[in-house]
């Protein structure tokens, strides 16, 4: 197991190097002078420009810039943004918000998705299963920002049940509505995955054996069907935590959540390259770590899988 973890950690290195390289190259290719993005409309002298370029390593060739970025990123030193604040501090402020939001969305997904999915799977092709199929298809077909706006209007503005926007001093309660919106699409996937997995397991040989030896239905379902069916669902949810964090850009925008999605989006529109690259690097790290956790979880849940 230790060997497996070590090998997986080593395999993460090319992924992280490659991903940061691609983002760095894209941002670097962006036409326009990054120094002008910083100074705005005011004219600056050539010596000031040269000083700023030296400060941001802009005077060095592309590959050197990237390597210098990597070197600093190793110690979580992501440079400073246009307002002179360290990017690391900005990320440290925004990251907990997005992480909380993503974990809340994941909890909603897990509870509703698994609960409803199990019921639908146990009664395959019944009326509940069919109506759940319809509901999940509609959830997948409507863009998340439409759902966001409708929820904001209905539950925030009209009914006043939830905060319309979140803002700087966020609380768990104010994140509830955005978390529901964020969860919807992946809730549909979780539900369908659970349903298929349960329905498939119900017909497995070992379940037939359990029934044949006279085990009551309740115990068959609990010990033999559910335990096995949940393995793919749990792994899906694990990977999903990473994608939820990255996918929160739209939801964070609609509800004005001060998370890293908003941070990244604002940085892209301002041309604040250091922040963009840093945020994406952090997200790639989270994604890579979550996939590792999922693989290890897989081995824990399914004793047949052994990593040598």
């Amino acid at each position: 197991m230790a060997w497996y973890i070590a090998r997986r950690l080593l395999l993460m290195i090319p992924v992280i190097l490659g991903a940061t390289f691609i983002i760095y190259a894209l941002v670097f290719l962006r036409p326009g002078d990054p120094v002008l993005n910083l100074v705005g409309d005011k004219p600056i002298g050539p010596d000031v420009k040269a000083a700023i370029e030296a400060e941001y390593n802009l005077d060095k060739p592309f590959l050197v810039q990237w390597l210098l970025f990597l070197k600093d990123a190793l110690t979580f030193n992501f440079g400073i943004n246009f307002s002179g604040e360290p990017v690391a501090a900005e990320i440290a402020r925004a990251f907990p918000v997005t992480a909380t939001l993503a974990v809340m969305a994941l909890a909603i997904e897990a509870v509703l998705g698994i609960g409803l999915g199990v019921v639908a799977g146990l009664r395959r092709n019944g009326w509940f299963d069919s109506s759940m199929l319809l509901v999940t298809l509609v959830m997948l077909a409507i863009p998340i920002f439409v759902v966001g706006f409708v929820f904001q209007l209905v539950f925030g503005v009209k009914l006043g049940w939830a905060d319309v926007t979140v803002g700087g001093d966020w609380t768990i309660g104010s994140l509830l509505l955005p978390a529901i919106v964020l969860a919807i699409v992946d809730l549909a996937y979780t539900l369908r995955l659970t349903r298929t997995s349960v329905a498939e397991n119900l017909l497995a040989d070992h379940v037939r054996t359990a029934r044949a030896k006279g085990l009551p239905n309740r115990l068959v379902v609990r010990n033999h069907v559910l335990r096995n069916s949940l393995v793919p669902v749990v792994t899906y949810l694990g990977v999903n935590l990473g994608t939820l964090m990255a996918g929160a850009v739209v939801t964070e925008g609609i509800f004005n959540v001060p998370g890293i999605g908003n941070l990244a989006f604002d940085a892209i529109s301002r041309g604040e390259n250091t922040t963009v690259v840093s945020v994406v690097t952090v997200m790639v790290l989270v994604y890579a770590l979550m996939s590792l956790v999922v693989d290890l979880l897989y081995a824990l849940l399914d004793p047949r899988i052994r990593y040598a």
Partner: protein
Amino acid sequence: MPESVTRPGQARFVASLEETPLQAVDAVASDVVPESQWKEAWKRLRRSVLFWISAVIILGLAIVIAFPGLFTSADPNYAELSRSFEPPSDGHPFGFTRQGADVWARTVYGARASVAVGVLTTLVVVVLGIVSGAVAGFFGGWVDSLISRLADIFLAIPLLLACIVVISVINNAWPKRGFWGSILVVVLALSLFAWPQITRQMRGAVLEIKSLEFIDAASAIGATRMRNLVRHVVPNALAPVIVTATISLGVFIVAEATLSFLGLGLPSGVVSWGNDLSDAQNEVRSGQHLSVMWVPATALALTVLGFILLGEAVREALDPKASRR
């Protein structure tokens, strides 16, 4: 034919050989070609309700895209500020936008851009994914390692954020581009980060098919590796990819709308559902003139639903075991 021997009483139960020619019943018609998996799948597909619902939606959509003039006589680009938020009237069934353009006409003409992005992105992603996945799975070795690592890298970058960066880069470099130029940019950005999923799936399917006996049989009678790959492995590994591709067509349409909503999809000059929905934000916030929102939103949801349903129907037709369970 030998004389049939009958015992007393037997004649009542067993028909004589002349009446039931056994040979005809038991014979195997060796010259009949067995139906291909695609033909059988099509047979099952024709019986599926989901398939017919999706077919009606997609056919209707195709007609709207081909002949938008049949559904509205208004010009989607013509706007008169004096008609801002005018209620529905004759020939304008859903009223007017803030700018005074016909909501229904914009929705009808917007179908073209949204569907073009979905279809083209799916085509690019499928071609890239099938080729890279098949090569990786079939040849293995360093080619496989290279393609798989590349796929890992692109999969690790969050899709939406990556597209935002790519499009904002292109926006600065190529600000003035026509309708197809704008479509192309969104298609490129989406496909650049969406191919690894198909590659992984194709690679898995090819690995599975490659180890089956009929591939050895084909090699034994002298098929070259290339012929094996093109004629035997790829066609048999396509089924799961086709299902994913159909469903992701809908997902790409949603992605285009989301990018346009963020102001980075199609430029505002292009009539598309994403742009209409993006413009409708303020109306939704105030809770008035909601037709500006729900008309394009319904069109978009129906379209996406059509493609997801088609994907579901094809999945069930290609994998009858799963649906019969």
